[in-house]
């Protein structure tokens, strides 16, 4: 299969399950919301050494709980407890400290972890809470059977697509520019991490341009993040190492400079490889992002598109590339190739 002259390898990406939280950060301006989000999602590229994977999700929400501009972030970790630890630490140090910011849970779920209920202690006794109970939802919808989001097990739809009201407890923590408002708890669900594809290009420049196009295209897909710097990975890894205790090491078969040293996976005309790693709320979101990214990356200067896998030993989600363009996977928006 080829797309715009680029070969799509008959292979698969190997993704695995992590727990995910989705937060919505609002501020006086989108710029400040993004500043807070970037700070919070810093040093969160890989679960291997960062404790979590996190990133800014696009596109921005059309409406937010407090009506101010907002930015969504997704954070992935191995367990609900790990999500809680990372979220509390990062929101406390990076969101609460950012001027004018507020932080809202944006993932209705049966399973929740503490957030504001821990951060509130920064208020040193001056913090206050507000409980917006389900009756406000009754008022808004006029429906007796209205299920106010929160613990109701929603669909995971973003706030701008959901009912305008959710049951929630918020904390108001006094800070020097006013108050920091944060949800008492945040929802946690099973997510999918490690979706990926490799861009094999004729030159470093062409490869980077293709990767950049892919990142821009994936930025329009909801429910996914690209946790690595600029959304691109240059140091793809394999499992294990010759050195004891190192769990991952350089992906030697894809390193152009090792072409004559190790058994290479690279055709002769390939001079550079970049990887796009995708984490998402579910398999469908990750597949949609892979399809959008691959389609954008294909073109002149890109020899082929591959994917990173570990022979099925790492994760339970095997995301094949070619079916993304054959209309086979559920939720694939990309359509066919040629």
């Amino acid at each position, binding site marked *: 299969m080829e797309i715009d002259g680029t070969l799509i390898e008959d292979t698969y990406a190997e993704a695995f399950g992590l727990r995910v939280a989705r937060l919505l950060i609002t501020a006086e301006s989108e710029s400040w919301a993004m500043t807070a989000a970037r700070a919070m999602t810093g040093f969160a590229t890989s679960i291997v050494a960062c404790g979590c994977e996190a990133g800014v999700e696009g596109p921005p929400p059309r409406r937010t709980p407090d009506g101010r501009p907002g930015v969504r972030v997704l954070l992935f970790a191995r367990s609900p407890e790990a999500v809680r630890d990372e979220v509390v630490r990062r929101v406390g140090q990076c969101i609460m400290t950012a001027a004018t910011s507020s932080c809202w849970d944006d993932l209705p779920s049966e399973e929740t972890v503490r957030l504001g209920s821990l951060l509130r202690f920064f208020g040193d006794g001056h913090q206050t809470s507000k409980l917006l*109970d389900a009756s406000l939802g009754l008022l808004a*919808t006029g429906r007796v059977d209205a299920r106010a989001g929160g613990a109701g097990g929603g669909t995971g739809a973003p706030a701008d697509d959901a009912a305008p009201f959710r049951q929630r407890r918020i904390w108001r923590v006094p800070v020097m520019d006013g108050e920091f*408002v944060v949800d008492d708890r945040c929802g946690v669900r099973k997510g999918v991490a490690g979706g990926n594809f490799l861009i094999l290009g004729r030159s470093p420049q062409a490869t980077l341009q293709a990767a950049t196009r892919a990142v821009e295209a994936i930025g329009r897909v909801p429910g996914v993040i690209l946790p690595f710097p600029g959304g691109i990975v240059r140091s793809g890894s394999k499992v294990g190492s010759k050195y004891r205790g190192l769990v991952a090491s350089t992906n030697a078969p894809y390193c152009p400079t090792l072409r004559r040293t190790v058994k290479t996976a690279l055709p002769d005309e390939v001079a550079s490889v970049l990887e796009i790693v995708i984490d998402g709320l579910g398999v469908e979101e990750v597949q949609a992002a892979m399809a959008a990214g691959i389609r954008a990356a294909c073109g002149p200067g890109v020899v082929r598109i591959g994917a990173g896998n570990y022979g099925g030993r790492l994760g339970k989600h095997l995301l094949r590339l070619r079916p993304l363009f054959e209309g086979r996977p559920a939720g694939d928006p990309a359509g066919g190739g040629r």
Partner: protein
Amino acid sequence: MTTTLRLKTGLFDRPIPVDAASLSPDHTAGLTVREIADLPILVGRTTERAGDLFDIEGAGSEDLMIEGDLGSFSRLGAAMTRGRLTLSGAVGPRAGSGMSGGILRIEGDTASHAGEGMRGGALLVEGSAGVFLGAPLAGHAHGVNRGTILVRGDAGAMAGFRMRRGTIVIKGDAGPGAGTAMLAGSLFVLGRLGEGSGALMQRGTIMTARPFDPPATFLESGRSRWPYLGLYYDALEAAGVVLPAGARTAEYRRHVGDLSSAGQGEILILEAAS
């Protein structure tokens, strides 16, 4: 399907207090017309059958409509936990007393103590409310403790007295002493706030969109915008409440108090109104 109870005319030659606590979806759901007709209603000192007072249409459902002059009927919808109860006109005292779920909609005015001791659900009053809206049940320490009350008209004195949680919204004016001794919760008055409102407040929020002089035991603590109010405003706008100009974007003057009590309450006065 809606179950309709239509009050028969010419029943009483003078007003007699009627305790209609048995008229709520909790009691009528699942009953036949005959069973609904046999529900007891205390009229003065005697117990009557609902069927002697009302014409009944439709088997019992969770959607109950009561039509007629209910001015002498007290405790309509008392302790209701689910369903929808619509009262077509003005009603007597203590409507929705102790309710914990469902929607009670009153299409006219309501007398005193509506929503007293409420623990959940929504009480919508299309007209005005009497005194002690959302106050404590007799012998209890707390008023509204979860739940939402929306009054599209005015409210009498002492609205939200000792409220503990939940939300009360008064689209018109509130009488004297609104939010007296509030323990927590949120009281929104889009009209004028009566004299002495907020006195003895411990925690919680009173918001008003009109000029107001808080009691002397409150201290002004500056002006600011309060983005969290947007959460309430979304729900109110969805319920058809037109917010005052600038409610979302303007600054509010904040007074903290009551310093003669716990002193952690706040009165927010829309700055455009000051």
